[in-house]
Structures are given as C-alpha cells and as structure tokens.
C-alpha cells in the first residue's frame, strides 16, 4: 500500500512519531477525528497507520476500508489530485456505501475538469447524473458541470443546446433553481460566443422575470450588456433597447449580490462541518467565490450605469429618436462626475437638442458643458460646442450674443476647422443687425485669412451686400464687378449682376441702369429670383427717361406670381396712364385689376383710382357707384379685409358734393345695413354698422361708441377684420362695457395673433385689469403692449396708465423713469412727449413735489403749444400747484393767462381757471411798490 501518500503536505507536519501508537489506536484516532470533521488530523493518523503498519498483510483489508475515508479527507483538505488514486481505488469497491460512492464519483469529474481532461470529466459527470438514487442537487450540479465542459472545450452551440434542454428540468424543482440560474448564465455566454444573438435575446427576455434566482447575476447582466452592444452594432436598435432595458443599475445589482453573499455564507457555515456534504460545501464555496469575485470586479467598474445608459441613448439616436436619446443622456449626466463618457455624452445631448430645434435646452446644455469641460486645453470638442452655442443663440434671435460666441470660436481656436465658418457667421449676423461696416471688416478678415476656403465666394459676395445695405452704391458696384472678375462661373453671378444694375438705378443713372437691367434679364432669364424686381426697376428707369411705352411694357412683363412686384407694376402702369392723361385707359386698367384680382389687398386702391377717374370727369355719381358696386359685390366676403377701406374712402367722395352729402351717405349706409340684415349678410351688416359709427364719431363720440358696441354683436372673431374687432372693443371699453370689451380683446388676440391691432388688445386688457384693480395683470398687459407697439401713438397713454399703477404700488421711481424715457426717445411723437411731460408733472404732484412739477407743466405749454387740450390741462395744473405752494399771485397769473387765451377758450380747463382767478383776485395783496416800480421803469 505504502506509496499512496505520495505527498504528505499539511498532514505530514501533524504525523505522530513512528511507533507512538498501536495500529488500533491510530485507526481509532483517525476515524474519531474524521467523525468530528477534523480532516487534517484524520488524514495524519491514516497516514501514520499506513507508514507504521501498511506493510503487514493482516491490515490489507483495513487499508482498503480506509481508502474512501482518506480520499474524503484529502478532498476536504484541498488535495484533490492526491485523492484521485484513493478515489479510483475506492469506487471499485463493491461494498462501498452509496453516499460515499456518490461523493467520490463527483469529485473525480471535478478533478478531470480541473486538469483540462474535459471529455473524461464529462464521462464521470454523465455517470454520476445517471445514478438516480444520488442526491438531486449533486446530480443537478453534475449536469451543469457536464455542460460547462462543452463550454470549456469551445463547443458553444452544443453547450447552448444542451443547456436549453436542461434548464426547464432544473427550474422545475425548487432545489434546481440555483443550478438553472448558472446554466442560464453559461448558456447566454455560449450563445454570445456562437453569435446567436436572437437566441441570446430570447434567453434574456425569458430569464428576466426570474433574474433574482441567478446567483451570478452580475455575470448575467454584464453578458446582457455585451449582447445589447452587439445588437446595437448590428443596427438592431429595438432589440438592443429590449435587452438593455432589462439590465439593473449598478447600485441595485451590488445590493442584491451582497445580500445573496451573506445568505450563501450563512448556509456554508451551517453545512460545512458535515463530512458527507462536502460536495454541497464545494458547490456553496464555488458559488460564494463566484459571487465574491463578481462583486469585487463589479465594484471596480464605476461607469457601468453610464455605459448602459450611453448605449441605450445611442440606440435611440440610431432610431433618430433624438428626444429619447437626449433625455437619457441628460439624466445620466446629472448624476455623474466629469469623465470622457460624460464629455462625449454631453456633446451628443447638445446635438440632439439642436436636431430637435429645442434651442433653449441646447443652449443650456452647451453652457453646462463649457462650465464643466471648458477649461481643458486638450479638449478638441470645445470649438464645436462654442459653435453650437452660437447657432442656438442665433436661432433664439439673440444675435449680439451669437455674434460674440462665434467670435470666441475665431479668437480662442484659430486653428480649428470651424474658425472660418464662425468668422463667416459673425459677418452674416452683423448684416442681420444692420452693422454693415462691422460686417465688411469681418468679411475682409475672412478673405485675407481663408483664401480658397469653400465659403470664400460667400464672404466676397456678402461683403458687397454690406456695402449695398449701407447705401454705398459706388463701392457696391466696384466690389461686385471685382467679384465677377475674380471667379469664373461665380456662385452669385446673377445676384451680383442684378446688384450692380440696382445700384446704378439708385444713383439715378437711369440710362445706364436700363442697359444693365436689360442685359441682366437677357443673360439670366425670367426665372431668376430678382428678375421681377429688375423688371419693375427697369420700368421705373424707362419712365424716368420719359420712355412711357417701354416702361409700361416692362411693368406688364412682371410675373403675376411675384405678387408684390406684380401689383406694384400694375399700379405704376396706372400712374403712367394718369401722367399721360389717358383717363379712360387708366380706368379700364384698374377695372381690369378689380375684375381679375378682387381678393387683392390693393383692391380698394384700384376702386379709389377708378373713382378718381370719374371725379376727374366730374361724374361724382359714377365715382360713388363704383364704390357701392364693389361694396355690394364683395362686402360680405369676410376674407376681404380691405373692403373696410372702401367705407373709409366713401366720405371723401361724398364731401365733394358738400357737407350735407354726409347725411345722405349715412342714410345710404344704414339702408345697406338693413338690406344686409334682411339678406342674412352678417359681414356686410357688420361693416356697414362699423362705417356708420365712424361717420357718427365726428359729431357724437358717445353715440358712436354705443353704435360700435352694438355692432360688435355681429362679430365672428375667427373671420372678421381685426381692425373692426379692435374698434368695437375700444368703443365697448369707452362705454364701460368691460365684459364685452374683454371678450373682444381676448378674441382679437386669440384669432389674430399676427395682426397689427393685437397691441390694442394688450392695452385694452391692461385698462380693464386696471379698472378691476388687478394691478399685476394690468402691468403685464401694458408691458406686452410696450413690447409690441413701440411707435404707437397710444404708447404714452399706456405708459401713463402703467405709471399710475406703479405709483399706487409705491413704485414712483419706475413710473418716473418710464415717462422720462419717453421724453428721451427720438421716435416718440411730440404729442406723446407732451403727454409724458403732463404725466411727469402729475407724478411729482402726487409725490408732493409741486415746485418741480410746475416746471414740467410750464415746459409743456411753452414747447408743445399745438396740443391745445394738453396745454389747457398743463396751465390749470400749474396754477393749482402754485396755489399749493402758497404763491397765489403766480397762480392767479397762470389762471388768467389760460382764461384769456382765445385758442384755449373751448376747453373746460379755461372755465375752471377763470373761476379760480376770480376767486383769487380779490384776495391778493396789493403789489409792493418796490417790487413793481423797477419793472414799470423797465
């Protein structure tokens, strides 16, 4: 026997001294230690027994009986290769107990697996599995080991098929679930290796509901991530998404696996001391080791979530679902410290928002990017991010900031390929901002620094346009000629040629312009974008030179599709006939227009000119008739907003017959209104009612407002002219019909958001809110008005109304500032400036600063004397302020001056002033001699 203990190892150090015990003692000690689970001591005594008594023939049987126990000791002591001869010898014993045979057979399989003899290992695992009386869990383990051997041999397809067949069997018993989990991981690995991605995806989907049962969950999820990547690379984005969505976050995975590890260790401790459950211990140890290894490795992968999210986002990007991609990446970036993945994801997010035209979001992401990664001198993406930021700013119409940001690309990244593009954009934005001189300088720089760049020609041409926009016609011509000479088949050949002729025309050099326009039209044909403008200008130039027939022909050649130029041309032809005094031709020309283009916004102009021809022939009845005919023919068409202008034009024709004719007109309009009502022509009825009210206004404003308010009942805000809606709303407001006014203003804003009259809705809604004490709402509406109607005549009224609220809210400073702003603004009319002065004076009075207020009132009536209503108010208020300042004499003088001014006599303030002067006069002390005398002398 001797020889079996080839290496003593650990056991050798515990060997009792030779002869220290009898054979029975050694055997008893060995078996006792074995029973107690002290396998090291047991092995040592078994070895001592063999050493001391192994050669004696009478112990041969005992030695045979010991072999399985020795094998088990060695296995337990981690000496599987040493155990193999004992195992092989033991399992040949016919009377070996089944449980020991089970344990040893299993270990033999493990041994061959460890030594790389996978086929032999499979034989042993196979034999093991066929023993139905062996433990179920060990048989399941053997089955997994059998399949694992296929994997180790690289037979992935076979392994996958094998596991596919076995997994359901394993899953059918509670004890087999753990093995099924391992089999699933191994199968997923094999499927990936065999590039069977469909099978792998099916497995991931099927396994997901039971994923918690998989002990190597991290491996499974990592393999799923690999699968997701493979599917993504194959452009199978939906499949990739389905796969990636089934992967847990790093935190959830770690938490799950750490809990599992604790459970496994607990179980290992419980069964570890049972010598007959060593294979189960082995299984548990294996599981613990695997899970521990997974956890340790996984803890080092800090960017697992980022990698997962990034891939998911890429899939959505692959599907051109930019919103989804951006949302995923944006969320990912919020929780992550800066890293290369975060950097490239941030870039992708900006691009996605740009693609979706969500400019504010793109801008914000670009700003965040620059804040986080902007300081890295090696960051190659910086110019691109600056460029996108500038693009977003430009889209948001923040042109100044956009230009500055393009400038940053130019300055900070002179070597970037984006620099010339940014420089060009900077020039172009300067053009948009009317900074023509700056644009020229930028384009000059471009041309100096980027010869041969694809945008060189663009820069060249737009520099010329900058001259043109600056009305530097000579420079434009010179530059455009140079441009045409510099490039053969120039990109902007047609545009530059047109521009040269245009500048010649602008310089009133009509003879040359005629030639240039003709050459242009001949060279580039009628389909060029500028051809119709060229024909119009050619007509102007020809008429300028007295070549009426040719001019008319040029106008008539304009394509009707170019509506604006075509109509301009038509009316210029009419003007030419007028100049030529061809009145009938002129009338026929406009009648032709009326017939062909009744829907044109210029239709009333044509009617006016037809009427004019009749007036010129002193045929007023015909002149009126043409208005009425057109009104009756088209007056019920709600789309023809311009019909209102015909109503506006009628009084001018009627007045030619004397002031009493207006009464006739009013009657006729009322008759039209009645007829329209009878005919159910609501639009015509509304227009007539509106026109009647306008006629009434001159005589009786209150009545006019009531008429207009009543007319508003006919309004269908969706289709009717916003001007009529606004007029009716203003009238309703003036008659304190606030509910009607509010509805009309709201409808006006709702249905005509682009109408010029929209601003009136803001003002009206502001006044209504103010009247209702809703100060915040009122200010909001007034501010919208200010933004919308900077040059409106109503602006000062609105500012004044706003100022009143501001004063009420204790914001006198703001109110004062707003009114002072009006005084400084050049574009503000002098009437509005006068109103602002009055408002400022009133503000100061409210602020108990009468001494300052008097100066503003005085300035008003000294500087803006033609606004008599305001002047009268200013006089009176100045007088009142002087009284409060205890200067009755000065107040008296102001009152007296007002009451004695002929031009102000009709204003109520004049009467008030006179009464007040009369009251004051007797109370004034006689003027002191010394005060009066020098003046008299003077």
């Amino acid at each position, binding site marked *: 026997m001797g020889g079996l203990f080839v290496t003593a190892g650990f056991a050798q150090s515990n060997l009792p001294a030779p002869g220290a015990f009898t054979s029975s003692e050694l055997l008893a000690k060995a078996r006792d230690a074995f029973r107690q689970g002290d396998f090291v001591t047991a092995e040592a005594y078994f070895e001592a027994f063999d050493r001391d008594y192994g050669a004696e023939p009478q112990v041969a049987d005992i030695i045979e009986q010991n072999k399985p126990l020795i094998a088990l000791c060695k296995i337990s002591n981690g000496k599987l290769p040493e155990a193999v001869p004992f195992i092989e010898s033991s399992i040949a014993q016919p009377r070996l107990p089944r449980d020991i045979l089970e344990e040893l057979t299993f270990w033999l399989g493990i041994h061959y697996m460890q030594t790389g003899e996978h086929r032999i290992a499979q034989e042993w695992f196979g034999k093991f599995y066929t023993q139905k009386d062996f433990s179920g869990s060990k048989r399941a383990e053997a089955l997994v080991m059998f399949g694992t051997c296929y994997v180790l041999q690289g037979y992935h397809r076979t392994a996958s098929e094998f596991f596919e067949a076995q997994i359901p069997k394993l899953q059918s018993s509670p004890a087999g679930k753990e093995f099924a989990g391992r089999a699933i991981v191994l199968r997923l690995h094999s499927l990936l290796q065999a590039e069977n991605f469909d099978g792998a995806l099916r497995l991931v989907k099927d396994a997901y509901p039971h994923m918690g049962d998989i002990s190597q969950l991290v491996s499974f999820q990592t393999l799923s991530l690999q699968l997701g990547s493979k599917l993504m690379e194959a452009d199978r984005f939906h499949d990739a*998404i389905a796969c990636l969505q*089934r992967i847990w976050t790093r935190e959830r995975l770690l938490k799950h696996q750490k809990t599992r590890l604790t459970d496994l260790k607990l179980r290992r401790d419980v069964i570890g001391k049972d010598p007959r459950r060593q294979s189960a211990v082995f299984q548990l140890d294996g599981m613990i080791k695997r899970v521990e290894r997974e956890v340790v490795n996984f803890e080092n992968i800090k960017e697992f979530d980022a990698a997962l999210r990034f891939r998911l986002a890429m899939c959505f990007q692959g599907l051109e679902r930019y919103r989804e991609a951006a949302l*995923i990446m944006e*969320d990912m970036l919020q929780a992550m410290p800066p890293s290369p993945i975060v950097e490239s994801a941030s870039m992708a997010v900006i691009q996605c928002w740009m693609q979706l035209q969500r400019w504010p979001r793109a801008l914000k992401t670009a700003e965040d990017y620059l804040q986080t990664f902007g300081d890295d001198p090696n960051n190659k993406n910086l110019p691109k991010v600056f460029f996108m930021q500038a693009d977003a700013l430009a889209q948001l119409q923040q042109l100044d900031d956009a230009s500055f940001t393009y400038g940053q690309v130019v300055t900070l990244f002179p070597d970037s390929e984006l620099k010339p593009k940014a420089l060009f954009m900077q020039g172009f934005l300067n053009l948009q901002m009317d900074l023509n001189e700056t644009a020229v300088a930028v384009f000059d720089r471009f041309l100096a620094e980027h010869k041969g760049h694809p945008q060189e020609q663009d820069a060249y041409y737009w520099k010329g346009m900058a001259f043109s926009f600056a009305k530097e016609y000579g420079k434009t011509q010179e530059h455009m000629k140079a441009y045409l000479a510099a490039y053969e088949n120039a990109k902007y050949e047609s545009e530059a040629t047109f521009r040269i002729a245009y500048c010649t025309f602008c310089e009133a050099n009509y003879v040359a312009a005629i030639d240039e326009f003709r050459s242009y039209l001949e060279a580039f044909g009628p389909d060029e974008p500028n051809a119709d403008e060229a024909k119009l200008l050619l007509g102007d130039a020809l008429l300028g030179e007295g070549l009426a027939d040719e001019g008319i022909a040029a106008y008539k050649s304009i394509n009707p599709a170019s509506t604006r130029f075509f109509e301009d041309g038509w009316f210029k032809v009419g003007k030419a006939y007028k100049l030529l005094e061809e009145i009938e031709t002129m009338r026929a020309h406009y009648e032709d227009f009326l017939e062909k283009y009744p829907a044109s916004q210029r239709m009333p102009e044509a009617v006016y000119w037809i009427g004019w021809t009749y007036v010129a022939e002193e045929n007023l009845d015909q002149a009126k008739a043409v208005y009425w005919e057109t009104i009756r023919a088209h007056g019920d068409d709600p789309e023809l907003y311009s019909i209102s202008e015909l109503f506006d034009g009628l009084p001018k024709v009627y007045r030619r017959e004397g002031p009493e004719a207006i009464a006739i007109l009013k009657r006729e309009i009322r008759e039209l209104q009645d007829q329209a009502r009878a005919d159910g022509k609501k639009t015509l009825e509304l227009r007539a009612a509106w026109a009647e009210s306008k006629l009434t206004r001159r005589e009786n404003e209150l009545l006019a407002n009531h008429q207009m308010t009543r007319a508003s009942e006919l309004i269908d805000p969706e289709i009717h002219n916003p001007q009529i809606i606004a007029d009716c709303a203003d009238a309703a407001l003036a008659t304190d019909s606030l509910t009607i006014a509010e509805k009309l203003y709201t409808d006006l804003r709702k249905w005509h*958001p*682009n109408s010029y009259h929209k601003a009136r809705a803001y003002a009206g809604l502001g006044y209504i809110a103010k009247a209702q004490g809703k100060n915040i709402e009122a200010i909001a509406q007034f501010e919208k008005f200010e933004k919308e109607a900077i040059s409106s005549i109503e602006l000062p009224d609105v500012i004044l109304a706003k100022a009143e609220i501001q004063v009420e809210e204790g914001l006198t400073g703001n109110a004062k500032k707003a009114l002072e702003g009006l005084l400084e603004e050049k574009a503000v009319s002098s009437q509005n400036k006068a109103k602002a002065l009055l408002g400022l004076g009133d503000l100061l009075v409210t602020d108990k600063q009468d001494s300052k207020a008097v100066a503003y009132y005085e300035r008003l009536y000294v500087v803006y004397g033609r606004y008599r209503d305001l002047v009268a108010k200013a006089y009176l208020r100045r007088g009142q302020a002087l009284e409060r300042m205890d200067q009755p004499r000065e107040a008296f003088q102001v009152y007296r001056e007002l009451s004695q001014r002929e031009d102000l006599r009709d204003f109520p303030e004049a009467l008030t002033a006179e009464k007040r002067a009369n009251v004051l006069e007797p109370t004034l002390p006689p003027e002191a001699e010394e005060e009066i005398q020098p003046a008299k002398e003077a």
Partner: protein
Amino acid sequence: MKSLPLILLFAFAILGNGLAEDTVMMKDGNALEGEILGLNQEFVTLKIRGEIGSSTSRIAYKNVEYIEFSPLEGEDEATDLEALKAIWEEKQKYLSQPRSNAGDFGLAFAEKLLESSNKFSQERAKGIFEMVEAKDWNVENHPRAKQGRLRSMIALGSIKEAMSEARRMAEEAEDPRVLIEANYVLASAEFDQLKKLEEENPRWEVDDEVRPIRNEHFNAALDQFLFPYLFYGSEEEASARGLMAAAEVYQQAKDPTNAKLCAEDVVKLYPNTEHRKRAEELIAKLSQ
C-alpha cells in the same frame, strides 16, 4: 352575542354547504368558512352555515392569522360603473384588512368615475383615491391611488396644487412606481394644459407670444410621458402606457410619424401589455 366553543365552530365549518364563503385562517392552523358579518380589531363575526342551520359567532381577532375573502357574485365580470360601485360599497369596509381586494375595486371604481366630466363624480373619485391611499392594507395600490388623487385634483381644476405635489413626490420618491406615477400626473397635467392652450389659441403656430408656452407644455408632456419607457423600461405596463400617451400628444401636435413610432415601440417592446391592441389599431389608422 355568545361565543361558541371552537370545536363546535369546526363542526359547522365541516358541514358547510359548498357556497363560496370567506375563510378565516386561525393561528393554530385551523380554517373556518362562513360569511363575515363584522370585523374590527377585537372580533371577527362569522356566520357559519351547516346542514342543520347557521350560527353566528365572534372569534377573537388575536387568534386569527388572516382572512381569505371569497369573491362576491359577479366580481370577476364587473367592469361597468354600477357593478363596480356595488362591489366597492360592499367591500370598502375591509379595505384595511390584509388579503382583501377592496382597494383594487376602489381604484377601478374611482378610475371609472374620473372618466366622467361631472364634478360630483370627480369629487367622489378623489375621495375614494384618498381612502385607498390612506387605508388600503395593500401598499402596492398606494402609488396608483396617489396618482389617481392627483389626477382628480387636476380634473377639478387644482392643477397647480396637483403639479406641485407630484413634483414633490417625484423628488422624494425612492420607489420607482411612485416616481413613475408622479411623472404621469405631471405629464397628464401638461398635456391638459397643452390642449386647453391650443383650444384657446387656435392660431398658436403664428402667435409669437403663445407658441413658446405651447412648446413648453408639449415638450414637458412628452418628456414626462416617456419617463418610464426611458428610465424604467422593464416596468412594461407603465412604459407602454406612457408611450401611448406620448403618441396621443404627437397626434394632438399633428405629427403622425412620431405618434406611429411610439405605437410601434409598444408593439415591438411591450407586446404582452394591455396597450398592444390600442397600439396596433393606431398604427393601422395612421398607416392609411
């Protein structure tokens, strides 16, 4: 009422007449079948039927492990408002009792009520959602109840309050389902505001003042409806519901291409959800 000795109770229980009955599982492992007549923290009152008649008894609640409630007649088929109302009214007293499905019916009934534009129904729905949220033993129902309560608040016009509560919920929630439901409420509110704004401003596309606000609602509704799909994609029902809602937003925006893409995602990624059929119908409609 006098308590019967347990042994007699078992005798009655064994002689049960085979009707569907509630089962009271005792801590000692025994089970009693009968009709629960009353339930409080001290006693369970059970009517036990036998061949020789029926008996009513009180069982000390401390001896009860749990109660398995038998389904009411027509419970499995109840889908219309009246049927759900009847079941809820019968069951609501057991809402806090473990293993009772009262909360499920409460939610179903409240959801049905919320479909109505009638204020009274919406108020009632809100009350039921509140009750389920506060009292249902089944915590799984709480996120849905919370979401339902917020949706009824929105229906009743308390949009700002609902949105601010949903935002707070979304910020504080650790349970993804709460987060998902909070986002769904936010998205629904945004969508409601989008529809209202478009209705009030039919020409919003050319309205420089309204267009940016409209776009904010549009984007917020979409972003939040897509939330479960993008961040909790394995929550299949919630993801598919969000995708179908996003499809609706796209349809509102007259963007059939993206609406169809959302529906296709449901079919491809969530074929086993209740939303699949609707998604297929939408795809068919948009493909015409």
